């Protein structure tokens, strides 16, 4: 199989990370986290992919199939990440209510 999916996975991960580092808006930052997360999805699916493989349902006939484990992992991970993103968005909403801003620089209340 080609290396393209792996390259794409790495690219999504790194570009998402860049977004998290440079973001000046918490909503945007949460989206960047999901971009990073998408990188892991692509990686997982690429690992389980087989050329010409079909869905892993072996009745009535046995045939070449893709790896169902990584699909289960991806689904689990989607569920987990939804929880986290929802929480971060709720906190961002709270930050906006309290300070009128969703800029991480401006809501930095304390340091040192």
């Amino acid at each position, binding site marked *: 199989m080609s290396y393209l999916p792996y390259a794409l996975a790495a690219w999504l*991960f790194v570009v998402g*990370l860049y977004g*998290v*580092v*440079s*973001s000046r808006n*918490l909503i945007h*930052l949460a989206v960047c*986290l999901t971009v*990073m*997360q998408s*990188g*892991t999805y692509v*990686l*997982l699916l690429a*690992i389980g992919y087989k050329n010409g493989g079909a869905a892993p349902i072996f009745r009535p006939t046995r045939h070449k199939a893709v790896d169902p*484990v*990584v699909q289960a*992992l991806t689904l*689990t*991970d989607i569920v*987990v990440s939804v*929880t*986290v993103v929802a*929480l*971060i968005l*709720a*906190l*961002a909403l*709270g*930050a906006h209510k*309290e*300070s009128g801003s969703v800029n*991480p*620089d401006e*809501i*930095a*209340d*304390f*340091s*040192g």
Partner: protein
Amino acid sequence: MSTILAFPVALPLVGAAFVALTDDWTPKAVKEFPAMLIAAATVAFSTVILVRSERTTLVHWFGGWHPRHGLALGVGFVAEPLGAGMAVLAGALVTASLVYSWRYMEEAPRLYRVLMLVFLAGMSGFALSGDIFNMFVWFELMGVAAYALAGYSIERLGPIQGALNFAITNTVAALFLLFGTALLYGHTGALNLAQIGRSLAGHHAGGVVIVAFTLLVAGLLVKSAVVPFHFWLADAYAVSPVPVCAVFAGAMSEVGLFGIARWYWTVFSGPLDPHAHAVRDVLLAMGLVTALVSAVMAFLQRHLKRLLAYTVISHVGIALCGIALLDSKALAGAANLVISNGFATAGLFFACGVLLREFRTVDELLLHGRGRALPFLGVVVALAAVALVGVPYIGSFLGHSTLDEGATEHGLRWLPPLLMLATGISAGAVLRAAARIFLGWGPREDSLLTPEPPDEVPETQASRPVMVAVTAVVVLIGIGLGFAPGLEDRSEHASDRFRDRQAYVERTLDGKVRRYGPPAPVVLHRAKPSSIAYGIGALLIAIATAALGLYRRRVPATARRAGARLLDPAVAGLKTVHSGVVGDYVMWITVGTALVGGVWALTLHGP
């Protein structure tokens, strides 16, 4: 009967649902009890597992999916003494916290209790699981519960900032874990720790293995808050409710450290063993920097919770040094340190809660001398500080002396004095705060200390006798572990087993049961003279640090000015780096991961 392994996880999860469901109908007088009882029962189950696992490693396959022909099919829990001990520690601290917070939470107490139970389930699951993806899920579960607990007072900006920094940095960490897990699965086709370990053993470390190792370790270094991955921790602790802080400090960071040791010994020790020195050097350097830098940061704080947060990071650094030595004695030392420091620090956070209730602030300078009204609490705080120092035969001394012996056996004679210095400085910061608050020593102003974050909402309904009693009990446990008879031999024996990949793999995949001899005879720990000297040295450094913090003005002016010229830029630099902006923190995580990975890419390759 291996089903018992499911209880430390199933019980708090089902219990959380039960509490969420029935809380509204429960009479107000007994509202707090179900959660407490569930947590206490969880500790009981974990303790039974701990005791049983001392004789033989316990394995439970969920749904009866046992391995076939040495191939893991399902998800399994594997309990050996260190993992089970971690679950007991987490459970004990959550139980203490729930008792302590009797009538503490005025807002949404139901959610608080539910979240604490879910948090406990996450930590227990992480400690017992034998499957890397399953561990990731527990990691996320404890994370989500912890973010929500940190941002509990969502009507104020401070907690929001702390919880956001916590959530974002730790989510990035979780993604590192997931990426590393996916790479390992692609490389070995397995998710079970034993299976991955078996399939990696006997091969050289290739690029994929090194990248996966780096990502997995970096993810856990964020969770356990090792410099430069640590920035979120002080922000999160400073704003979390006190009972939550106690659990964070005593159990959560340590769970991260536990994961590093688990993954190294079970999964990676095969291919990385020929390069153990490279793994050791990197982790040791990070541990030392963490221990020293955070001890200094602790000294610069006046907000008590933030001060304690930095002492927690410093202790994490010391424990990481113990893990980094990659040997049984040092690992046992780290484990003992985690337990005794965990209880003592939790006790100190509890004491903060009492101060907050009485005086509506946890600012050391504002509290100047006001603690005289609470002499008993003052004694408890002083005892906790002594436990942190590791004065011979008290508190963390057992851990320190075992770690020191491990380091000396490796010929690292310079390590114990440096750890002594770190311990002394961070404990000195606690002693200084205690002397200022409970004795009224020292000036009321100190420009060196970082101004405090805005103050907390005091929880006035809480019951002071309950709070003080829990504080005292927790501190006494922390102190008592220093001279618990037989603990040293048992923990060393447990560490030997923890490091034995062969036995773990054969037990998990082939069902080959090994019985371990009866528990080591109960003997009192006998420390070497050098360890006793380090213990006393740490105490002297702590007292000197505290005195310097309180009576700096009595130093001759010329010496003071020279010192200021030398140290001021460093102090200012340290404070600037801890900027409170989450983008900077993630930048540090990225740079740290790249550095660690770069060093390992150069050193771990080849035969």
